[in-house]
């Protein structure tokens, strides 16, 4: 009873266009905390997750990408 009720597994709340972007970017929607109403996942949430991942995946690229 004290346990927090989490959204049942496998169910994400995100519009079709966001689900498509997630597939394109290879982002797992279940790993994202949505910023929309009620925790709905938005385009921006997915793109941010994609950016974050590519940032941490390719640190070298990041340093070369900022020429100063």
């Amino acid at each position, binding site marked *: 009873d004290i346990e927090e009720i989490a*959204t049942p597994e496998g169910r994400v709340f995100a519009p*079709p266009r966001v689900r498509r972007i997630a597939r394109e970017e290879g982002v797992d929607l279940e790993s994202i905390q949505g910023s929309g109403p009620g925790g709905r996942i938005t385009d921006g949430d997915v793109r941010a997750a994609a950016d974050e991942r590519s940032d941490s995946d390719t640190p070298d690229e990041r340093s070369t990408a900022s020429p100063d």
Partner: protein
Amino acid sequence: MVVGDVTTGTDVLVIGAGPAGYVAAIRAGQLDLDVTLVERDAYGGTCLNHGCIPSKALISATNVAHEASHAEEMGIHANPAIDLSGMMNWKDGVVDQLTGGVEKLCKANQVNLLEGTARFDGENTVRVSHDGEGQGSETLEFEDAIIATGSRPIEIPGFEYGDEPVLDSRQALALESVPESLVIVGAGYIGMELAGVFAKLGTDVTVLEMLEDALPGYDDDLSRPVRKRAESLGVDFEFGYTAAEWHDIEDGDGIRVVADPVAEPATDGGELETADAESLELDAEKVLVAVGRKPVSDTLDLEAAGIETDERGFIPTDDRARTNREHVFAVGDVAGEPMLAHKGSMEGQVAAEVIAGEPSAIDYQAMPAAVFTEPEIGTVGLTEDEASEQGFEPLVGEFPLRASGRALTMNESDGFVRIVADEEAGFILGAQIVAPEASELIAELGLAIELGATLEDIARTVHTHPTLSESVMEAAENALGQAIHTLNR
């Protein structure tokens, strides 16, 4: 290869031109794929020729006549005469217009059309045999194939469809005269839709159903208004019976259908007890068997391409509509439940897009379904029970049609709109509607579910007055404890 045989090739082969196959072919054409669509019978498949479209045409037409003759309360006195052959001609015209349209759309989207029956002949080939004498066959090579061969009605022992008084739904939709009496075996959606049509045509209809209610796939409170309305049209129901056999009535016209009571587990949990009710004998002019449909996968020589089916004959697929073979897809009725046209069309689109390299997937949150009875039923997503089973805390809102101004002005006040949401965030999880136009009203809720909309989103969207769609808004408000036109629970 047989001498004299022609081998041609295509990038994408689609087998079957029903709503799954022709949609796949058109989308493939739009994506500039070289696509060939093979159909053995008629463009549009079951749905356009013998299913959705002719059934809905007859439902609309018989409704027009029935409404007018039952509108004394509204001050209208009419006694319409129905000319069945006129009605069937009109229906056939509707079908022709739509199937002709499908053919044109295929051509306009550069789909190669091929008439014939396809069977796999290897990993990347089918043989297409043409009907009629001397038509022969040809071999077709493909890179990717989409199987969209649909389904056929299930037969029950003793009721073979070839026999004259035993009808399947296709034959029932093409009768040349109104039967005086009809036994319908099966109270699923096809049986119930046709029970309404025939009752309104003046046929004495009896529905036999093995289970204990009409539309057994639906919750009681959804099916009840439909069953009651059917009863008020004069339809008799016999629940808990299975059709055992039929024979011609001696010294008389018509046939006698014998139905046996279903053996039920004893309520005390003990051993199986043969129900002690006696067999029924129902006399009728014809009997329509509508007990379900099964996939058309047995006539395709699937083994030749190494494609697997499950124990019921469906071809299992993944979320890209792919079978166990990477280059072969299956869509529509042959790929599994729910056997609905729009489910097949969506899968057809996905298959074509995946072949074209697009990031498409079968990722719907909810599949709507409708029953075109009186009143209609429309459902999408989860029921309250299903939501609980999946671990949600369901929050439910309802609105009864008798409180809807629009429903009263239509003289139709049976039914309700129910919305199931998740208590925590208010996300819409499902909806069940019994109402006139339920098939249309469910669209808003389907969109709501796909978008991840909440109760508040629906409640705060202005809905036109006076419409039935206001009932959707009111049901959402009711879940939030702030409905205006009904008391909040």
